[in-house]
């Protein structure tokens, strides 16, 4: 019945989708394909690997550095967001979990560029963080170091992405069947054991999605490496912007882009394979 009515209302639903699909096609898929094409061809259209070679020769350090930064950030993110979400789900102290639930969402809508500016001042040699350490007597003014650089990039990414990944993971934990946890409690399982043996195995898919989305975000944010990552080595995104703004060299920039797609695809593939393996084991 319902099917006939909806068909009646929408004689040809494709027309309704066409404008949106065209927009994505022209302004996203076409440039995406063009970037792949540009990365592996010369100006006259013949296939070449010279741009990729050049990208590796000039920026292999930065490529390696990018992968390390992304992996460390994702590892810290996973641990922290699972800890927070688990505390919210399992902690017996209601007032504490309410505070925590409010706290972790704070950076959710703070833009990356604002986060970068905050961290640029906070983590600097004369930033509030070092000043607080000095004031509390942990450091002397001469011992302070600036965290602007690779560690600053990691801190900024984790600070900003924590809200998003915790929101996804605590959502998945809240959607779990409550009776399982209660049954395990009644049988005498400790909270830690419930987390590792009952909750975690069920939320692994959500964790994977949150981490893959975070990786893609980290690989496409330009403002953080530009504002926090001073000096070399730096992240690939900064190199691409530099290549274009200083040399107008689209080929090498696109070759770097191709490498960044491959890194994302590789990590996503790793996640999918783990997922399939687990399904196969069951």
């Amino acid at each position, binding site marked *: 019945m319902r099917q006939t009515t909806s068909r*009646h209302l929408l004689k040809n639903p494709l027309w309704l989708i066409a404008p949106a699909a065209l927009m994505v096609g022209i302004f996203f898929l076409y*440039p995406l394909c063009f970037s792949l094409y540009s990365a592996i061809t010369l100006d006259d259209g013949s296939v070449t690997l010279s741009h990729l070679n050049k990208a590796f020769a000039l920026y292999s350090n930065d490529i390696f550095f990018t992968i390390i930064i992304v992996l460390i950030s994702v590892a810290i993110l996973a641990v922290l967001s699972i800890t927070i979400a688990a505390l919210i789900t399992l902690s017996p102290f209601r007032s504490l979990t309410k505070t925590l639930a409010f706290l972790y969402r704070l950076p959710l809508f703070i833009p990356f560029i604002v986060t970068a500016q905050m961290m640029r001042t906070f983590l600097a040699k004369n930033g509030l963080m070092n000043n607080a350490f000095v004031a509390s007597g942990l450091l002397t003014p001469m011992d302070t170091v600036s965290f602007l650089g690779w560690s600053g990039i990691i801190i900024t990414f984790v600070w900003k992405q924590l809200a998003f990944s915790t929101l996804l993971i605590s959502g998945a934990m809240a959607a779990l069947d409550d009776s399982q946890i209660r049954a395990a409690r009644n049988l005498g399982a400790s909270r830690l054991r419930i987390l590792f043996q009952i909750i975690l195995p069920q939320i692994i898919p959500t964790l994977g999605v949150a981490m893959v989305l975070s990786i893609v975000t980290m690989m496409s944010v330009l403002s953080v490496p530009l504002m926090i990552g001073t000096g070399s080595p730096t992240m690939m995104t900064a190199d691409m912007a530099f290549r274009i703004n200083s040399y107008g060299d689209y080929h090498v*920039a696109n070759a770097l*882009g191709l490498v960044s797609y491959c890194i994302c695809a590789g990590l996503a593939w790793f996640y999918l394979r783990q997922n399939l393996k687990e399904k196969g084991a069951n």
Partner: protein
Amino acid sequence: MIYPQHKALLDKFNIRSLRFSFWLQCVFILLLALALFGPIMNLLIWTVTESWYFPHALPSQWGFKYWQQVFNPYSDVSGSLFTSLLIAVLTVVVCMIVSIPAGYALSKRSMPLRIFWMLLFLIPQAFPNLTVYMNIARLFYEFGLNGTLPGVIIVHSVHGLMFSIWISVAAFSSTDPMLERASRNLGAGPFYTFFHIVLPQAAPGLIASCIFVFLESLDEFTGTFFVGSPNISTLPLLLYTASMEGNYQIASITALILLVPSILFMVIIHKFMKPEMLSKLGK
């Protein structure tokens, strides 16, 4: 068989471990709060700083000198604020025009290739988009769209499309199909039914998607950096330039202006958006 004194001992142990874990959790929350509020505090301090040099723990001179500079009607900031708001509003309009019909069509389960279309609109969020932006900039250069408002609005709209379409699909899915059918059976035309029966039911979700698109557009940096500069200066670009020039006061005040809508909308959305709801998105 547990003897009474054993039981008392066990309880004592339990209470002690419970108290320990309470304090442990308190310390964790305190550290998290420090880590979250520290950078925000630093930003706030910089907005009311007039001079702050290395060995001083706090600014040596406080004042609102830079606020006057920023809110002076001839400053760059007021111009950029206006440009940013104009772009954000127009982006919301473009996204809504495109995604209301698409969201309505995709909310019907009978839609052919529904999953394919949903995934198509997910793609702009699933690839690192920096490379795409630089190639769009190159493309726009040929058509004279680089450094113009329409160019920037197009880039922002494509970026926001994923939010607007996915959220409006969810909004239209939650409408009652029986009301729609009743309206049709009583002789109302399809357009009358859509605008008077379906759209009002989906309105709250659509407003939420407007908020998301508005915020995304207001905070967008990378796309504007490639497509808009140097002619179009939005608040994020201004913040970046000021910060790179070492003008931290102007950068911090601009950042604070960008924070206002973000926090405002977070308070509004906080009421609607529960983690449980998020796990149902896209189903």
